[in-house]
């Protein structure tokens, strides 16, 4: 058993952290946030130039052959600085569908464009009444000659306002929540019948409502097998959740550092407030929650590309539930320990807190994943170890 990174992974992490140290910081991030796109095209180019957008794709497709662990490393570093660039939407989520669902021709077309940063992707899946149920798909796909016609309303597509192409789930057959009968299509954002309405989330990141009205797509827009889209969606979102957990660990860790630093400098009653035991213990609770989140994220990362869908989902749900609880504890305590300044937009703590709150909600909150895990029989029932 080995928890260390390889030499290559350490180099990757160092290089990325150096880049982010130069390009991020509270003031710079605020500037990016205020730009129309809500992130920095210059930083995005640097990220692509480093090869990070090529990371999770096979070498024969033009990628670097990285795995879930490499993504974990990148996402944790991005989480530490609350990076805004559409890495998650494009490379992790969109890239996930390309890698797991794309045929050779589709991969050959898309991977080079993802890799050089020129193509931005999104995944439009959730609908108004779906909540966190992955199998809930009301959007329809009807066979039409060689292609399909899509109709429906998608909600909360991360990065959907900036995406050039959007992965969309649609139902070919069956009832609204049936696992069977779903397919995944890649649609041009500017195709006739596609309308997007972009907006900001609470943390300043962007998403979009995507409406599909008689959108005609060709046969080669289908990713994976028609009707078997649910398994593909489940796998890609499991891997995406593991990546989000890593982002959360980075943000929790940075927020904890920020808070401890504040405890060491802020003085009241003539001493640094970090001398007060009640505040020390709250800071320790944050530390413990962060390390526990890190540990279970490593576990989920290891399991995220497992071929055993049950094992994979159990591990990922366990991690999402644990990270969600920990993120809330760390976020709320950070605000409390900062006192008044923690409440202001002019201070970083609140921005971490808001991002962590969004991460808990994304792809199902703590409670959702806890009950999902319980339904699947728990974590240790079938595992021998």
């Amino acid at each position, binding site marked *: *058993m080995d928890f260390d990174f390889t030499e290559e*992974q350490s180099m990757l992490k160092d290089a990325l952290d150096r880049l982010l140290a130069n390009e991020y910081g509270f003031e710079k991030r605020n500037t990016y946030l205020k730009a129309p796109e809500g992130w920095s095209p210059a930083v995005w180019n640097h990220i692509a130039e480093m090869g990070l957008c090529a990371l999770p794709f096979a070498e024969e497709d033009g990628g670097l052959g990285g795995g879930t662990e490499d993504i974990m490393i990148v996402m944790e570093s991005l989480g530490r600085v609350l990076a805004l660039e559409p890495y998650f939407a494009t490379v992790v989520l969109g890239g996930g569908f390309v890698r797991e669902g794309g045929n050779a021709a589709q991969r050959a077309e898309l991977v080079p464009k993802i890799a050089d940063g020129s193509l931005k992707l999104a995944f439009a899946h959730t609908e108004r009444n779906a909540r966190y149920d992955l199998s809930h798909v009301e959007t329809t796909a009807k066979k039409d000659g060689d292609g399909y016609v899509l109709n429906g309303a998608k909600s909360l597509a991360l990065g959907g306002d900036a995406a050039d192409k959007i992965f969309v789930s649609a139902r070919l057959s069956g009832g609204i929540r049936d696992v069977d009968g779903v397919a995944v299509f890649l649609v041009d954002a500017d195709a006739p019948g596609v309308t997007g309405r972009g907006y900001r989330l609470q943390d300043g990141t962007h998403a979009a409502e995507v409406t599909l009205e008689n959108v005609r797509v060709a046969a080669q827009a289908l990713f994976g097998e028609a009707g078997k889209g649910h398994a593909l969606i489940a796998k890609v979102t499991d891997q995406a959740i593991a990546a989000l957990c890593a982002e959360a660990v980075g943000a929790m860790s940075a927020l904890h550092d920020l808070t401890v630093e504040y405890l060491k400098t802020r003085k009241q009653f003539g001493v640094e407030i970090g001398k007060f035991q009640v505040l020390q213990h709250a800071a320790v609770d944050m530390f413990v929650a962060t390390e526990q989140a890190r540990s*279970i994220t490593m*576990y989920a990362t290891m399991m995220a590309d497992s071929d055993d869908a049950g094992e994979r989902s159990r591990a990922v749900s*366990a991690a999402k*539930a644990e990270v969600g609880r920990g993120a809330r504890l760390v976020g709320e305590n950070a605000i409390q320990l900062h006192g008044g300044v923690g409440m202001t937009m002019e201070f970083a703590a609140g921005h971490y807190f808001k991002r962590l709150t969004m991460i808990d909600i994304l792809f199902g909150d703590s409670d959702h994943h*806890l009950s999902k895990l319980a*339904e699947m029989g*728990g*974590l240790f029932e079938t595992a021998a170890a």
Partner: protein
Amino acid sequence: MDLRFTDDEIAFRDEVRQFFAENLPNDIHAKMLDGEYPDKDGLVAWTRILNSKGWAVPHWPEEHGGIGWGPMKQYIFLEELQKYPCPQPLAFGVNMVGPVIYTFGNEAQKKQFLPRIANLDDWWCQGFSEPGAGSDLASLKTRAVRDGDHYVVNGQKTWTTLAQYADWIFCLVRTDTQAKKQEGISFLLIDMNTPGIEVRPIVTIDGGREINEVFFTDVRVPVANLVGEENKGWDYAKFLLGNERTNIARIGVSKQKIARIRELAAKEMSRGRPLLEDPRFREKIASVEIELKALEMTQLRVVAADAKRGNTGKPDPASSILKIKGSQIQQATTHLLMEVMGPYAMPFQHDTGEGWNEPPVGPDYAAHAAPGYFNYRKVSIYGGSNEIQKNIIAKAVLGL
């Protein structure tokens, strides 16, 4: 990063499992499954079975009877031991005084005591806490005054676990009343048969008789029983308390408890269906499992780091996390197990030593559930309370 066990480690785990299955006496296994602990004879018998295999003190240096397994195999061994579940060898000997003796003791002490600890020929107990010295251990008052070739010891120790069986007690005693409180303490080994020692039981809230008060009145202890140097006892005590981090979280114990909870929740009925099918109860189990899985990975991170850099004998601050979360999880499992029994957790039918020969009220597995819950409140108190652990992290890790 590779979080899987190696083939060698898996083969080792299977070997350990097989040995336990073939060698743990059935009556002891039945007691352990029921949440009971074996009596003195049972633990002695089991320790000797382990010792004849060479497995009573695997974590010791090889020249003193250890095996040189390395941290990962030690971890696997202990986890399997706990999961089966087998009784653990008496910690006061093999984990506490043994390592102090082989690290700081003289040759005569090593020769006299170490083999007898490994074989449980001597039952050891721990004389640290006093009525006025709990978390503030260094304020202890038990005095040892030099008189020729002896120390004369006067004072009182408390919370002394299983002192009623003990042949020896290792004690922190004050040998210098003028020095700073940490600097006037010495580490003495005292024969429990010495005149002037009196052991009085303390009954715990679960009805158990595991802890005691030990009174010392003009107890004469040969100077030869001083470990290391006079007035350096605090250093040895810190070593002792920081030494155990391979399995401080007791992952295997909690895994076994969760398996037991599932097994019994499948038997207990609630609203006409097995309790295990109740979604809310399943979520409660899953919630503890998640914490436990995270802690298992944290524990393995510590073990893997130890394996890499070698066990330095210095307490790793991360072991404080293990103590805090490990105790919370153990406590959560004992409460869940009590919940499984529903109203049958209530009847008091605990064997308090006088024997319990009545037919059980309710299911025969319910008797120890509530006492187990009450008893496990101790795990967040002993060995440095969780609040003390937080102080340690705040200082050593966060620099506050």
